[in-house]
């Protein structure tokens, strides 16, 4: 008989809630190894004993064959003498000890569960909460770590005998599937006193009513997408005049009746994270005007819970599905009381949502809002922080970020912190993350803007070291961090506004930056922001600031002269180098958008109008590394007066700005010798600008870093702050 050997393993990474223990069990059983596997707050611990070759085989197979949703960051193996263990078992979880567990994100319904859902002979036929070890709710139901049923909101549903048998059968797909359940033992659907809540909801939708529907991370508001008046009603009740609503389609085929779905689009739509995907809308898409006015895109997602699948199946056509809130407030997740005046009916259930989370949004392979399906999975920083860090983020599109060692736990999208409900959810979510990951921050990073709520929050934390990080440095750092780099690079940061240390408002910046520091080497030429925040809400004011003497029929003529005077006399008109405001001026001068109702609206609509087949461009002068944005606007006005098509003008404007950025980067390379450029800031959500700029830079021999996993907008600021703080605390 061969001599047996023993090993203790510790596996760190995303290894809980992804079917990892069942996987280890199957692997060990196949190799006839004895031992055990369990979750603890550090991840997964494994003990194995057996013949040396089989143990070796186990060690090499473990990372190779791991479940698709698992992410192994580290496997630590210790030799020990065999203790004569018999068989292989899954043990109960251990609590206590230092926490390195990575709480899994929520996962869209898998193909196996979907088959069961629609199979009349299956015992979970049409059961709206079917899930398994490979799919289902995770982050949104977790109350603590390690991740097991007792520490989720499923704890209140004791398993029936049939579910318990599956749960403890290593050969079953539901082996240790923590939220598993069935109609006999699991959550129930409710709609008032309706006997058949689902049918009732469907009937009301067909009736043109607004139905609130409890999803994974909160309530949605739903109406039929094609109903002539329902979406408009929803807009009125939600106080959301223009910002597009997202639509849910039953499957790829139905999505293809709405949008042109290319391969990348299809991949994004069917990703198990199930984000909202922004896609070009088909001209004949069966969608009411009020769903997404003034844009030729549509945000589409596919069902990600069994309830969505059933609902879409029954309704038979796409539905609008938008966050259940009033404008700017966080998504309702405990109860639908706040939606009383908005929804005509509430389709809910009795599985509590522990943590609210919004839908994620992606576009052209870029994450624009990082929330459900992504959070709270960590990103790995290119530097290891010696001390735990909390980065408090920006003010709008806020996220925060906790760092331990090289792991950056980026929060889901939180939103506008000037809203009190949202601010409260920010403070709660920080506490939740601290508890889940067992991190007590010693270093707290914040923006330099003294009036940001997140800055004030940082300043009021006792006993921590504060690190102020300039807004645009944070943007570059977030781009570096997500690309696993430390710099230095040329950072081109184009966004709306950020606090400059010189007391002006930055937003069209050329920096030389690494994770630790930065130097401003150039920027858009400054113009006054007449009326401060009013100039952001009213893009026409930027037209007045840039070209006070322009002779175009721009609306608001009666206020034009006073606003020009504000700009001239510097009355409530701080200087800004913002690229977002340059886009605003262009949109206003082209009569595309003069007043906005949501952030970035003018730039978004300008991009929508641009003809991507136009390749010529306006040229902008530079003065050192100061880019003269007004040159682009003058050329734009001349074209408009000459009657050139708006689509062509908008394209030439984009192309011209991209060309000017490339020229500035070339000049920066002369000065610094750097040939890598990081593109960041909310303006680079503009796919046309991003494409033109990146193409031009690559043609010019630059290496180009862009965002994919982390939003280029202020949703990425906290990661950048965290990376800077970590880098300064190595």
């Amino acid at each position, binding site marked *: 008989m061969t001599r047996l050997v023993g090993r203790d393993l510790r596996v760190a990474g995303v290894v809980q809630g992804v079917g990892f223990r069942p996987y280890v069990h199957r692997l060990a059983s196949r190799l006839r190894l004895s031992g055990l596997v369990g979750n603890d707050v550090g991840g997964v611990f494994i003990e194995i004993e057996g013949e040396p070759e089989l143990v070796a085989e186990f060690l090499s197979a473990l990372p190779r064959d791991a479940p698709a949703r698992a992410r192994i960051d580290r496997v630590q193996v210790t030799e020990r003498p065999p203790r004569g263990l018999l068989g292989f078992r899954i043990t109960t979880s251990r609590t206590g000890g230092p926490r390195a567990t990575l709480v899994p994100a929520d996962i869209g319904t898998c193909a196996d569960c979907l088959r069961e859902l629609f199979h009349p002979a299956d015992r979970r036929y049409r059961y709206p909460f079917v899930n398994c070890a490979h799919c289902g709710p995770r982050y949104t139901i977790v109350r603590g770590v390690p991740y097991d049923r007792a520490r989720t909101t499923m704890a209140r549903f004791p398993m029936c005998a049939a579910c318990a048998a599956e749960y403890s059968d290593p050969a079953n797909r539901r082996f240790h599937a923590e939220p598993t359940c069935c109609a006999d033992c699991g959550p129930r659907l409710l709609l008032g006193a309706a006997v058949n809540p689902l049918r009732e909801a469907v009937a009301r939708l067909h009736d043109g009513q607004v139905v609130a529907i409890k999803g994974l991370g909160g309530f949605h508001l739903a109406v039929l997408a094609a109903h002539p008046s329902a979406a408009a009603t929803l807009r009125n009740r939600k106080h959301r005049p223009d910002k597009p609503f997202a639509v849910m389609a039953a499957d790829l085929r139905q999505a293809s009746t709405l949008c042109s779905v290319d391969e990348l689009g299809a991949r994004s739509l069917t990703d198990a994270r199930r984000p909202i995907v922004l896609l070009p809308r088909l001209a004949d898409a069966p969608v009411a005007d009020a769903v997404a006015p003034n844009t030729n895109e549509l945000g589409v997602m596919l069902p990600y819970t069994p309830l969505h699948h059933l609902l879409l199946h029954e309704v038979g056509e796409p539905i609008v599905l938008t966050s259940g809130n009033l404008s700017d407030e966080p998504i309702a997740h405990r109860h639908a009381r706040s939606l009383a005046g908005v929804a005509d009916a509430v389709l809910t259930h009795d599985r509590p949502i522990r943590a609210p989370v919004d839908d994620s949004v992606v576009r052209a392979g870029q994450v624009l809002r990082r929330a459900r399906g992504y959070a709270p999975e960590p990103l790995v920083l290119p530097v290891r922080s010696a001390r735990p860090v909390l980065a408090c983020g920006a003010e709008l599109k806020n996220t925060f970020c906790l760092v331990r060692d090289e792991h950056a736990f980026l929060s889901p999208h939180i939103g506008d912190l000037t809203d009190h*409900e949202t601010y409260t959810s920010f403070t709660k979510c920080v506490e939740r993350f601290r508890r889940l990951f067992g991190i007590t921050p010693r270093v707290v990073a914040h923006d330099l803007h003294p009036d940001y709520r997140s800055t004030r929050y940082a300043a009021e934390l006792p006993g921590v070291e504060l690190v102020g990080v300039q807004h645009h440095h944070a943007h570059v750092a977030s781009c570096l961090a997500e690309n696993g780099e430390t710099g230095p690079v040329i950072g081109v940061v184009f966004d709306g506004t950020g606090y400059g240390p010189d007391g002006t408002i930055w937003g069209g910046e050329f920096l030389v930056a690494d994770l630790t520091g930065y130097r401003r080497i150039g920027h858009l030429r400054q113009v006054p922001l007449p009326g401060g*925040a009013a100039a952001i809400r009213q893009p026409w004011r930027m037209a007045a600031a840039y070209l006070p003497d322009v002779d175009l029929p721009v609306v608001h003529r009666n206020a034009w002269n006073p606003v020009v005077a504000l700009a001239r006399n510097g009355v409530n008109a701080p200087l800004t180098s913002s690229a977002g405001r340059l886009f605003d001026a262009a949109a206003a001068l082209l009569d595309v958008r003069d007043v906005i109702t949501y952030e970035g609206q003018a730039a978004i609509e300008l991009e929508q109008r641009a003809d991507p087949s136009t390749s010529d461009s306006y040229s902008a002068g530079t003065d050192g590394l100061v880019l003269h944005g007004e040159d682009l606007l003058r050329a734009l006005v001349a074209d408009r007066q000459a009657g050139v098509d708006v689509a062509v003008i908008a394209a030439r404007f984009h192309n011209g700005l991209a060309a000017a950025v490339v020229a500035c980067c070339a000049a920066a390379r002369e000065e610094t010798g750097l040939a890598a450029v990081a593109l960041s800031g909310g303006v680079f959500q503009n796919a046309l600008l991003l494409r033109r700029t990146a193409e031009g830079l690559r043609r010019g021999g630059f290496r180009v870093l862009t965002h994919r996993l982390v939003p280029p907008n202020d949703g990425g600021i906290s990661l950048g702050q965290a990376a800077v703080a970590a880098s300064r605390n190595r």
Partner: protein
Amino acid sequence: LAHGAGGKATRTLVDALFLEAFRNPRLEPLGDAAELEIGCSRLALTTDSFVVTPLFFPGGDIGHLAVNGTVNDLAVSGARPLYLTAGFILEEGLPVADLVRITESMRAAADAAGITIVTGDTKVVQRGKGDGCYVNTAGIGVVEHAWRLGMDGVRPGDAVIVSGPIGDHGVTIMLARGDLGIEAENLVSDTAPLHDVVDALLLATPGVRIMRDATRGGVATVLNEIARAANVAVVVDEDAVPVRQEVRGAAELLGIDPLYVACEGRFVAVVDAAEADRAIDVLRDHPLGAHAAVIGRVAADPAGLVLLKTGFGGTRICDVLVGDPLPRIC
């Protein structure tokens, strides 16, 4: 030194520097005036310096402000204003005619407030070292009411009142300064002495907890002071805040929020909710309180914050701004 907008930066300066250096029980409350007991009378003492550009503006001038500002600080402290001092720092080259106008308007304002200017001082600084004229006034008044006003009296449930439409003074000054070509015949400063209307309120309503004149930093700043000092929340209903149409229009154009704009003849009062109606009736019977309104209430949570309930059902946090307001929208 970059402090001066009347916001949080000034507050920090006062707290960190002056309060630290001069700390004593009478200074500690940082009220508009200090209450002193001399013999068997309770006196209130206050001082204020006035810096304004331009010196003359629709509805008033620096002289008016200098008298009314000190009168009002005494009044909201519950004192009847008695005597005033006047100190002038004059820039070389200030036209004598201007100085005459200023002193005449000070006398008129003092007469209107029933107060006597009893002593003064004058210094002249070199050309370029001053904005024409600065005025400092100090005032003394007597507290005749029996009850005590103070932050410690503020409790959840109390009503928050403003004595009239807000923002007139600050918006008028900004327009006067800006040469903006905005026609605004109806826009004049609200500068006025408040002792009489305050007196009427105090006589009728013993449930007044605290009063503050909403000068620099506007009503928002006063409310934040109350929230912080009394450790309560102040919840304001945006639609209930009285703002005159022309002020609203001009503020919109200027891109400023009337809640943060200085008033020189308006005060905020926190009143026992049971007496709110009566307080409003009394205020509205007086010409300077004709448009008084309950704008919100005191709540226990979230302590230290001022919340603004907007028309759309949202609740915004209304912070004191640290410096000049710079946009926070990205």
